[in-house]
């Protein structure tokens, strides 16, 4: 005979202002099987928790129903209270009378009735609850970091320094990401590569870090602590063991006219190439789409010149499987190209460039060796116009969010230009200057006061090309909306930062949510900023939203801390909510007929065939077997089973039926 205790929480005024809690408790006490019923102002408080403990002890309760807020909020709290007093925590159920009742209804009699119905349903369920015990699964203490920009590098180093193995996967031939392309960084104007490359070297040399460059994720299976990731190692056409990185191959390659991705299309690279001199690893790769041999079947000049015979045209893509316990995503962001903007000429004019291209022009390792020169005729521009919010904060034509990093890097660009071309004049068209950050505001003030950079508050309507000059037509909203025209030599657009091209496909492979812009979604915008909704997968850097370098590093270290926290224990406690095949005494063994329908539909590949043998080893019957460590408790097999032989523990068909019947009565 069940002895159920009912505890109705007022949640201050949250529930009590709509629902008559006292009445609910009083009516519940009259239901069969209920031996104790009480209401209280704050059930989750210490005195409230003590009321539960006392009642369990005094009345020897076999089940507890708590009418309160959502189980997402306090189920754990109340189950812990039960466990402390010796009651199996899975004998405690929550009736959600706040989110499902008081918050969504007016103060009417029906609200109280509905709250009572919810309580009654839970009482009927808890009568059929059985004690359950959590499973323990081992954790595979290897982390996978996807994306080798500054965020990926930081996460990898942090985890590796914590003593665990890290596998860093990068799509491009070298790690370094966006930060490697930058010239100087704000607000200190220190060289980006100078601070990044030591970190890159550390990654390459760290005994705990394994680096897979030129590799992509094929598929991801498994769950927290036990992921299985298939990685495609694209053929580099180079034997890295033989290659001495002498560089003879790329100086001899005849196919030199390929736009350099690293230099943002401002220079050319050969078909066999190293993206930039400080690349890690420093071995070249062959870009097969542009290689004469791969396209026309003849050439192999690089092979002839290679002194160690490292060039291997026969190499094929290799798929490797990696087992890991946690995954960090740090795939970064992209920027909109100039051709996105009709009013700025659809990318027709070479002297209208993006901020990223300006970084390459200003970089000492860039196509102009750090001199600011126009892409069209290599002349030094005397007047440069910077346009911020190109595509950002533009619901009509671009994206509605603020790209966040542009205000600061545009100031930086104007300062770099002034440093390199002291007689040059620069204008910045802006909507607002968003300089929130340590020393950021001071940096922008310095640009205006010391560098004499002219800020114009207004938008640029279009840019006309006239006699090799650009007529920038805009409006100055601080001069009563007066139209202004500036005859410029170079225009730099701070184009919108957007998610990576393949971010949505990757999110689907990892089963994590992403927003309408293709950025990965965090589990909670404030309290779980580096976690995703899938346990064991974390976010670092600007794959979540545009971030500057300090912020990326912060989130990367945050994600690394989460992984280290996970790896600090040897086992993972898992909820015992798993599917079970019913077992019967011989000769039936189970009602399962062995149709194997469930094996095919299980999304987690947790079900297999089990053969029951007699003493002589003959197979008497074949039934399904569910691996509890793999089962995620989704219930798909329960719904599919023709003979109703599978039940979800804690949510058996009987429990659900009783609950539904109680609701309907």
């Amino acid at each position, binding site marked *: 005979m069940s002895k159920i205790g009912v505890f109705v929480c007022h949640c201050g005024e949250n529930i009590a202002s709509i629902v008559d809690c006292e009445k609910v408790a009083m009516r519940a006490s009259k239901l069969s099987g209920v031996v104790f019923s009480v209401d209280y102002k704050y059930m989750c408080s210490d005195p409230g928790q003590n009321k539960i403990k006392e009642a369990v002890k005094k009345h020897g309760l076999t089940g507890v129903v708590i009418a309160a807020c959502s189980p997402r909020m306090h189920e754990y709290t109340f189950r812990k209270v039960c466990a402390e007093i010796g009651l199996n925590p899975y004998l405690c159920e929550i009736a959600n009378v706040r989110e499902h009742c008081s918050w969504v209804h007016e103060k009417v009699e029906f609200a109280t009735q509905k709250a009572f119905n919810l309580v009654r349903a839970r009482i009927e369920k808890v009568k059929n609850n059985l004690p359950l015990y959590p499973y323990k699964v081992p954790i595979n203490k290897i982390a996978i970091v996807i994306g080798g920009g500054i965020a990926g590098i930081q996460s990898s180093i942090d985890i590796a320094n914590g003593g665990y193995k890290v596998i860093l996967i990068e799509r491009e031939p070298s790690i370094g990401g966006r930060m490697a392309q930058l010239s100087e960084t704000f607000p200190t104007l220190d060289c980006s590569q100078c601070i990044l490359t030591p970190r890159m070297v550390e990654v390459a040399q760290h005994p705990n870090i394994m680096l897979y460059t030129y590799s992509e994720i094929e598929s991801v299976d498994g769950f927290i602590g036990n992921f299985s990731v298939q990685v495609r190692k694209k053929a580099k056409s180079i034997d890295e063991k033989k290659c001495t990185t002498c560089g003879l191959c790329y100086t001899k390659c005849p196919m030199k006219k390929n736009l350099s991705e690293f230099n943002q299309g401002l220079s050319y690279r050969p078909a066999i190439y190293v993206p930039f001199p400080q690349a890690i690893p420093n071995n070249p790769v062959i870009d097969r789409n542009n290689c004469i041999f791969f396209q026309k079947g003849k050439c192999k000049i690089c092979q002839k010149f290679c002194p160690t015979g490292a060039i291997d045209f026969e190499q094929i893509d290799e798929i490797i499987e990696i087992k890991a316990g946690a995954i960090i995503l740090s795939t970064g962001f992209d920027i909109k190209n100039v051709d996105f903007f*009709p009013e700025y*000429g*659809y990318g027709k004019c070479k002297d209208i460039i993006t901020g990223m291209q300006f970084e390459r022009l200003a970089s000492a390792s860039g196509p102009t060796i750090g001199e600011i020169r126009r892409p069209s005729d290599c002349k030094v521009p005397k007047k440069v116009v910077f346009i911020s919010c190109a595509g950002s904060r533009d619901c009509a034509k671009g994206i509605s969010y603020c790209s966040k990093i542009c205000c600061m890097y545009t100031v930086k660009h104007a300062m770099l230009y002034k440093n390199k071309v002291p007689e040059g004049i620069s204008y910045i068209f802006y909507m607002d200057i968003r300089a929130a950050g340590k020393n950021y505001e001071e940096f922008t003030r310095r640009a205006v006061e010391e560098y004499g950079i002219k800020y114009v508050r207004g938008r640029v309507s*279009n840019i*006309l*090309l*006239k*006699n090799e000059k650009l*007529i920038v037509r805009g409006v100055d909203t601080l001069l009563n909306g007066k139209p202004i025209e500036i005859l410029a030599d170079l225009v730099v657009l701070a184009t919108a930062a957007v998610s990576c091209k393949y971010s949505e496909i990757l999110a689907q492979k990892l089963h994590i949510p992403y927003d309408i812009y293709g950025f990965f979604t965090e589990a909670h915008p404030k309290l779980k900023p580096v976690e995703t909704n899938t346990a064991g997968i974390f976010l670092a850097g600007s794959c979540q939203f545009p971030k500057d370098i300090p912020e990326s590093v912060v989130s990367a270290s945050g994600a690394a801390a989460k992984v280290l926290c996970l790896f600090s224990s040897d086992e993972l406690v898992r909820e015992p909510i798993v599917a079970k095949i019913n077992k019967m005494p011989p000769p039936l063994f189970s009602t399962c007929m062995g149709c194997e329908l469930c094996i095919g539909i299980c999304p987690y590949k947790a079900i297999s065939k089990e053969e029951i043998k007699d003493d002589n080893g003959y197979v008497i019957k074949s039934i399904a077997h569910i691996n509890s460590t793999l089962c995620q408790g989704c219930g798909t097999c329960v719904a599919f089973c023709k003979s109703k032989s599978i039940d979800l523990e804690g949510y058996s068909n009987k429990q659900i039926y009783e609950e539904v019947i109680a609701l309907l009565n």
Partner: protein
Amino acid sequence: MTQIGFFPGCSLKGTSSEYAQSIFTLSKMVGINLVEIEDWNCCGASTVHNINNKLSVTLPARILTLAKQQKLTEIVAPCAACYNRLCIAQHQLKINKFLRNQLFETFQICIDNNISILNIIQYIEKYIFEKIKEKIIYFFKYPVVCYYGCLLVRPHKILNFDRLEDPQSMDNLMKKIGALPIDWAYKTECCGGGFSVSRTDIVVKLCGEIIKDAINKGAEAIIVACPMCQSNLDTRRSCINNYLHKKTNIPVIYITQAIGLAIGIKKKDLGFKKLFVKPTFI
């Protein structure tokens, strides 16, 4: 003989009768009978929509209603302003049920949204060009700039014609008749439109910049598809010359005139006589 509705608007009956003449000549050559909408009225063009939104929809709506009553399913509006007003009225009545009911109750105007409205470029592309392709005998081998004006491509969301900035359709047609269209910056800049009479100084300044860039880019003719643009750039030339402090003689030719020349139609049948700035090079 294919029959297509024709809405001349005020310009084609007056200042730009040469435009009308060249359109009719071309249409006749390919066997299209352009039927003028009977009892048509002013489309409202550059002024009414600034003063009275309801009237600015009512005027074109009446034109479209007449077209429907005269069993025309497709009409050509060669004037960019007329084309613009007709399309916008059609769009507004499509989305605004209240306005639609109001017009019906007051004027018994019931607009048929199925009438398709063509601008001159769409008309040439759809009906004329395929049939005259073989007839091109004198390639129009001149460096030209195509001037679209503001009304032909805007508002893009409603008209959905060509690219909003830097349109290409006229350039493509010009290439096909052998011309050398030059990429320039003033394709869709404002010519001053209806201010020609009231604020000639503004029109002269705006047109002056357009003509200056066309000449600087090495064009020998400006090709247009809007009577308003043509008249501003052509008839105001003496004032423009004063503004630019030099004598300019770049002619402003309608696209239909240029095509007509390429297929060997005589200049006098294309109304060249009426141009203020004579195309001496042809």
